[in-house]
């Protein structure tokens, strides 16, 4: 299990020393969550961020029209958390819910900020992580604007193989910003013709 932690960290910043890695390990705690568990309370000021070791979670919010919007389905190895709220010390406007049972590493955000600001190695790791996050978020917005529902669905299936058996169709539709009926039509079209 810890190897995945190491793998993730070194994937972002290969030159992080083992000493630094140990320091980071000291401020993280591994917890088991059950399906439907929420990692923190929606609408409250959050204190932690998370690394998903196994399982799948959704990051979601409720739109003005009352609909749920799933802005991300997280797969193992990803960092999760209400980053905007953590940075601004404001109320979380996104929640994270486990869609399957999950093993998750938790870390108090301020502990990490302390490390990042007192140890340049972590500062560099943090900088690199935020850069990658920027790149992937920009990509998602571009896809949102330029790809069709079918294309977004195929990309999701590629990123999380077996997604259709892991989470509900309603959830997938919400993540792709299409209706469940549209998704069902897309799936029918994609089925190999007999």
């Amino acid at each position, binding site marked *: 299990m810890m190897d995945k932690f190491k793998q993730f960290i070194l994937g972002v910043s290969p030159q992080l020393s083992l000493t630094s890695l140990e320091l980071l390990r000291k401020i993280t705690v591994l917890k088991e969550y059950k399906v439907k568990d929420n990692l923190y309370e929606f609408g409250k000021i959050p204190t932690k961020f998370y690394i998903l070791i196994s399982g799948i979670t959704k990051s979601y919010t409720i739109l003005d029209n009352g609909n749920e919007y799933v802005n991300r389905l997280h797969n193992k190895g990803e960092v999760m958390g209400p980053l905007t709220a953590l940075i601004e010390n404001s109320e979380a406007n996104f929640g994270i819910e486990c869609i399957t049972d999950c093993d998750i590493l938790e870390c108090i955000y301020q502990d990490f900020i302390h490390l990042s600001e007192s140890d340049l190695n972590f500062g560099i790791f*943090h900088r690199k992580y935020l*850069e990658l996050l920027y*790149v992937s*978020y920009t990509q998602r917005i571009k896809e949102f604007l330029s790809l069709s529902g079918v294309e977004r669905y195929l990309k999701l299936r590629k990123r999380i193989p077996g997604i259709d058996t892991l989470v509900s169709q309603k959830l997938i539709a919400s993540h792709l*910003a299409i209706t469940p009926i549209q998704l069902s039509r897309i799936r029918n079209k994609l089925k190999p013709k007999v």
Partner: protein
Amino acid sequence: MKGFIERINNTHPISKNSWNELQKLVEIKTYPPKYKLEEPGKVSEKAYYLLKGVMRTYSTIIKGKKVNNGLYTDNRYVAEFTSLILKKPSVSTLETLTTCTLVEANYNDFVKLTDTHSDLNIWHRKNLETFYITLQKQDLSLANFNATERYLNLIKEEPKIETLITQKNIAGHLGISQVQLSRIKKKLYRS
């Protein structure tokens, strides 16, 4: 340069030594309107801080669809960050719309400097955090508002936008077709 210094101090004050080092990397330049600073297919090298003027980025991505990703006015960081970070060819054009005065620096040199100076590292990290928050707001706005609402938000944020860029680009920015935009405007002006 005053706007840039103020911006740094508001984000995370840096030491005199760090400022001296940073100054060695940056240059102030003025460009005419319609000047392309970055173009698709080229690996971007520079990051900019827009002191004065209006700029935009747009991209032709996937199946010829044009997407306008950004409009920038005074005191904004501007760059093809994805290209800078991944060192891959940019998919976007970064262009001045008016005469623009910019602070510019080679991003690699800049990052090397931030990786060796703790105060610059913290300052840069805080900038990246702000960029992330902007993206999140954009994402939420795409999901939360329909095209008409997004159009009205844009007009509210950038009242002169209709005179600055073409309808095609406004439609691209909103993620809709030109025909859809034209219908939205007809409806709005009728009522």
